[in-house]
């Protein structure tokens, strides 16, 4: 259940950013989660609801936007979109794609008062 550690990190980032921008309340937190990252969105939301208590984000909602994985196929040399580690190249069917992006977990923005 590493989502709990991630939710604790998330609240720390939210509190720091809210303080730096003089916010009095956080309404929404927007998180970008790569399709290839090892994060379960629903589990993270439950953990977030637990750790946001008694913080400036107590009533904040967590919005998760998923970003696609990108990979380069060594066979047809095309850059393709992938949703997981196991799918073959959608262009030529080759496996063993070189992953370029899609592992990220990034706090994009906050909506604050």
């Amino acid at each position, binding site marked *: 259940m*590493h989502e709990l550690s991630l939710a604790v*990190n998330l609240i720390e*980032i939210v509190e720091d950013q809210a303080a730096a921008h003089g916010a009095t309340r956080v*309404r929404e937190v927007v998180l970008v989660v790569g399709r290839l990252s090892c994060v379960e969105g629903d589990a993270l939301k439950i953990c977030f609801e637990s750790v946001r208590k008694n913080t400036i984000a107590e009533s904040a909602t967590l919005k998760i936007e998923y970003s696609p994985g990108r990979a380069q196929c060594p066979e047809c040399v095309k850059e393709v979109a992938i949703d997981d*580690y196991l799918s073959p190249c959608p262009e030529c069917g080759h496996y063993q794609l070189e992953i370029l992006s899609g592992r990220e*977990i990034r*706090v994009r923005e*906050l909506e*604050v008062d």
Partner: protein
Amino acid sequence: MCMTCGCGVDQDAEHPADQSRTVKVEEDLLAANNKQAEHIRQHFAAKKILALNLVSSPGAGKTSLLVKTIAALKAEHSIVVIEGDQQTSRDADRIRETGVNALQINTGKGCHLEAHSIHHALHDLELKERSILFIENVGNLVCPAMFDLGEAHKVVILSTPEGCDKPLKYPHMFDAADLMLINKVDLLPYVDFNMEDCIDNAKRVNPKIDALPLSAKTGEGVSIWVDWIKRKLP
């Protein structure tokens, strides 16, 4: 009190304009861990220390393999081990019996080690220049995958009774690792395990992963693993 948002303005009075605004953040959720890991990595580089992060499911044989590995390396190299388990110091005790220094980290309910735990541990351990540090992570093929501990390499250990489809079922860990050790090859006559399929499955997830079959029990293949470690020494 305002019934719309509870802001304290009388409902009949003019309600203030919506005060909400958007603050751009664009910060990696693992930034704090990654920053600490990078600090540790720089410390290792300065002291020419090789740090390996050993990950596997529980029972794959990490500690048994470490005991065998230490026996092969300790005459020529200074070795230190950090053991991560939810509870008990059983693994650190086993390592200390080999004569090398081991520090046990109990994560309690935690399912993985994080860079700050390693940072604290390094303050308690005296690592000489050119040491080898083995970090035995909590037995778990999911959570430790995403936490950088400042290691040079993640080494994933898979044992033959677990089945050759483990890399497909737990791809994040095999994606994060540079080397896959396939342990318990002495059990191959008794278990349904296809070595070629296992390596193919791992390379399907991570084309760059190396694979070494071995047995911590009989010692078969251990010298090849020990040579791999020696080649990685800074």
